[in-house]
């Protein structure tokens, strides 16, 4: 029997929860909810995006229950504030050599430094392999918002990886 999207749902859940046991629970509940609300799934529409939407709602439900503030209800405020902070980061340095020397675990560590709305979209697109449109469907926001968060999220990710590379001593300060 093929649970077609299981691996990718699990990988995204793992990065969103940062905890194996919780990721497993979330994925299992996602399939169960999908099964129960199957009659609401319109045939021919995107099953993968539908499953991710259910999983994200499930996570939000859990986080709310645990009164964690990791998931922010309204990232729009953040978009304004963060946009200024990003000004110096976007674009990156094309000469960066550190990409060759990123250590195992660095990417996860860097992902964890991203503000949630950025992390969420970077994980959906770059880990989950969703298109901009699918990610917008899952996050309930327009394609343009997906793009702006994704690009800024990636720029921040690069910056964080650059910092780690300097810590590891692969790249000298100022390089």
């Amino acid at each position, binding site marked *: 029997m093929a*649970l077609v999207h299981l691996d990718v749902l699990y990988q995204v859940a793992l990065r969103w929860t940062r905890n194996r046991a919780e990721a497993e629970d979330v994925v*299992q509940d996602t399939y169960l909810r999908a099964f129960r609300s*199957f*009659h609401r799934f319109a045939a021919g529409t995107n099953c993968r995006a539908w499953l991710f939407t259910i999983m994200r709602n499930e996570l939000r439900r859990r986080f709310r229950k645990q009164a964690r503030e990791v998931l922010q209800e309204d990232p729009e405020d953040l978009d304004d504030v963060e946009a200024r902070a990003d000004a110096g980061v976007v674009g*990156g340095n094309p000469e960066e050599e550190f990409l060759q020397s990123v250590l195992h675990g660095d*990417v996860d560590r860097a992902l964890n430094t991203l503000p949630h709305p950025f992390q969420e979209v970077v994980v959906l697109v770059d880990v989950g392999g969703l*298109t901009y449109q699918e990610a917008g469907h899952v996050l309930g926001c327009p394609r343009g918002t997906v793009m702006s968060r994704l690009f800024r999220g990636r720029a921040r990710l*690069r910056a964080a990886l650059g910092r780690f590379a300097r810590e590891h001593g692969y790249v000298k300060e100022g390089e």
Partner: protein
Amino acid sequence: MNCAELRASLHPYVDGELTVGEMAAVEGHCAECRACAEFVRSEHEFRQLLRRQPREGAPAELRGRIVRRLRREAVAAAARRWAFVPAAAAAAALVAVILMPSYRSAPPLVVELVDKHIAYAQMERPAELASSDNAQVAEWFRDRAGLYVTVPDYSPSGIRLVGGRLADAHERKAAYLLYEKGRTLLSVFMVPVSGNEAEPRGRRVAYRGHEYLAYEERGLRTVSWNDGRTLYGLVSMLDYDALLECAERLRLERVRQTRL
């Protein structure tokens, strides 16, 4: 196009999100602009780095747990009200609906009707209009969706009308009639079609001088035919004799109504 204008397109370009025309514009620019070409190369490399990250597959144990859980759920759903799928096939069939979405992309119409038969039967109130009054149900479809629906009376065969609901099939409004014989559910669909656009599925069966298509899908029997304007599809666990008799009665009733 200058670099500033193009920058906004470079990420979507690397992500394969541009149209062919937009891609050509980016490529044309990058052939002449070293800075933008370098940006694209660097973004490509970064994306590959993200994709190269070791990824854990879901543990086999989790996979097994989910499948077992869904099976239990399917059996429970099947036991709730109607026998709408063969008991033995119930779990696997229902689970397969969720688990094989790629196959759902554009299934033949009759397969889509089987999916709906299964999905609706699990709803708390599958009939939007619960009524055993044939005329009332027909009128409801007319008012609600402008569909001219024939609601045959199967009560002489012990098959009771439960009600109707609007369904979508092949991305258009269709009529869905629910009947029950004891605990066995019979679904009757009427889908507006033009000509023979709906891909026929099944083997030809002659019954009282008329031809029908008989097709089995996941343990369910279907009988369908197309009069050039409407595709009629019956889905049930009832045997073919009963289904063909119901089909024949619907056909006759339909012809009688059209003549009026």
